[in-house]
């Protein structure tokens, strides 16, 4: 029982990390109908920028100031990226179909990865923003050895929760947020009531960049910033499908479900299948969800016969 709970908690907390990356996907898909394959590359670039800034600043100023400066610099870099993507990729490609836009984001991913590696180099950069890495053991009276909870994962969950709350508030209660939702519903209609599409897209890509930065700091604290971070995008895709491409709560719930599901699969099913089944299990899970609910658990219902 103790082990079961441990796997459950580990899966849920791991799922939060996926949700964090999936969130970036959902934001962009909602506002522009683009499945942004470059999200992984953006996580990588944001992490590199932040880590490089930390290295440079922390030698000259106190930690808190260095942290703030680096966050500012990295955010600035992501804003610049968002502007460049909006200006040079999205605007010329307006009204193209989803596949073309998807391919364009793969092109963007190559560009971001190439440029980021060129500017910041290929060495591993450490990120330390003071997140604790100890593990705690709770309920030691009930279970032998207690139940393991990793503090870093717990903090990640807290950060993700804060991010989701902030994003929800932003979407519900601000003028820009309402404009964003209007564009998501129907961008021609939104444009006709005077919402500037280009500006909205810039905002959305900036927010996605910000989410990428948060994801990068969290993942980077764990394993350092390195090229392998670009692969987290692939972990987020099944989450996206299970939750539905357009739902923010969907991304969170699906993240938890997929995180939990794949951990259970690996721990309980894995040994009899030879192990290493996590990755495809997540996708097969997504496939089954699709067969039952083609729009995902929380996606907008597609009223269409296929």
């Amino acid at each position, binding site marked *: 029982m103790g082990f079961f709970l441990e796997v459950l908690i580990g899966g849920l907390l791991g799922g939060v990390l996926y949700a964090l990356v999936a969130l970036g996907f959902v934001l962009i898909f909602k506002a522009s109908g683009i*499945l942004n394959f470059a999200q992984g590359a953006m996580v990588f670039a944001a992490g590199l920028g932040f880590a490089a800034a930390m290295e440079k600043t922390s030698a000259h100023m106190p930690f808190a100031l260095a942290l703030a400066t680096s966050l500012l610099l990295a955010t600035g870099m992501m804003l610049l990226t968002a502007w460049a993507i909006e200006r*040079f*990729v999205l605007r*010329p*490609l307006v009204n*193209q179909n*989803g*596949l*073309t836009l*998807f*391919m*364009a984001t*793969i*092109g*963007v*991913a*190559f*560009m*971001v*990865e*190439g*440029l980021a*590696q*060129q500017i910041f180099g*290929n060495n591993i950069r450490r990120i330390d923003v003071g997140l604790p890495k100890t593990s705690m053991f709770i309920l030691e009276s009930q279970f032998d050895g207690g139940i393991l909870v990793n503090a870093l994962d717990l903090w990640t969950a807290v950060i993700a929760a804060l991010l989701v709350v902030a994003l929800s508030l932003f979407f519900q209660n601000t003028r820009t947020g309402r404009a964003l939702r209007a564009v998501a519903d129907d961008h021609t209609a939104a444009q006709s009531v005077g919402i500037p599409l280009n500006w909205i897209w810039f905002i959305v890509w900036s927010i996605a960049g910000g989410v990428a930065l948060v994801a990068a700091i969290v993942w980077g604290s764990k394993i350092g910033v390195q090229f392998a971070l670009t692969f987290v995008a*692939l972990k987020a*895709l*099944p989450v*996206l*499908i299970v939750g539905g*491409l357009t739902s923010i709560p969907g991304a969170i719930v699906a993240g938890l479900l997929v995180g939990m599901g794949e951990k259970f699969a690996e721990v309980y099913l894995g040994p009899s*299948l*030879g*192990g*290493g*089944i996590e*990755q*495809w299990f997540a*996708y*097969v899970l*997504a*496939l089954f969800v*699709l*067969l039952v609910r*083609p*729009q*995902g658990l929380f996606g907008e219902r597609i009223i269409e*016969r*296929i």
Partner: protein
Amino acid sequence: MIYSDEGQLKTTYAADMVIFPLAQDRTLFAILMLLAFVGIPALALAGIPPFHADYIFKAILTPFLILSLAALGLNILVGYCGQISLGAGAFMAVGAYAAFNFASRIPELPVLIAILLGGGVAAAVGVCFGVPSLRIKGLYLAVATLAAQFFFDWLFLRVRWFTQDSPSGSVSAPKLNVFGWHADSAVERYLLVLSIIVVLAALAKNLVRSDIGRQWMAVRDMDLAAEIIGIRPVRAKLTAFAVSSFIIGVAGALWAFVNLGSWEPSTFSIDRSLQILFMVIVGGLGSILGCFLGAAFVLLLPIMLDIVPGALGMPLSTDTVSNMTMFLFGALIVFFLVVEPHGLARLWVILKEKLKIWPFPY
């Protein structure tokens, strides 16, 4: 003037239905075939650079042809039938491992037959993974096909039967023996691959012009309307998956047997799938010619970009070149999508229209 069709009158339906209705196209195609089958090998025999070295055959022409074939297979699914797939790598892997098992478990079997059987197994697997397409489509289907990708990556690593208990999970292909002919040299291997590709491309071209091809396109353009006029979407979609997977499977077997000789599942990873999808998109959806143009662009451009600075004696290190190649490649993809979203094949069509009236304005 150059591409004018004046004076080329058709008197029969058959003449109107030929693959190349224009005499100019026929001549061009004949020259191209002559060049590919006779010209290039002759240049190699004569030792004229750059064809004197193995490099051009082993590292450029053979991979280019094989990946063109894979792109052709994927184009049937994506371009003609409108079903997006990110699992091309997986079907290549199925073809490669199936061919390997046929060839090594039944040593009497000619390798060519084993390769085709590998394609057959890939077709069967493709039909299974095509079933979800009956219910989902678009980007959702694309992500669903990734399930196939990761599942087969895992399967060929884990189940030792497929790799015949090779301790590392890496397997190597048997010798290429086509009905007694040993394709050992680079030029022979090129000719072998070229022949297979020409045959399959001709088949594919005729298939998409036939009844079934028109069904695919009807389903692609509007599935509901297609169903109403009496096309069974189930049959159309699944045949598209089968034909596409067969061709991709053959390409996978060729990639493993001819190009690499020894391989592991990561050869057919998600990167390969994306690469092939790129070829289809950049080349042009729904165009056979586009597959070859796309493959040339996606495969050869990075190699060129990689070689050029060195050849010019520019003082750039390999990682700088590699990063810049990556950046430029991404930029060019975006550029092409912006300038010509219908792909390189469309540029060729536009060029022909221009040449038709050239030098007059209209």
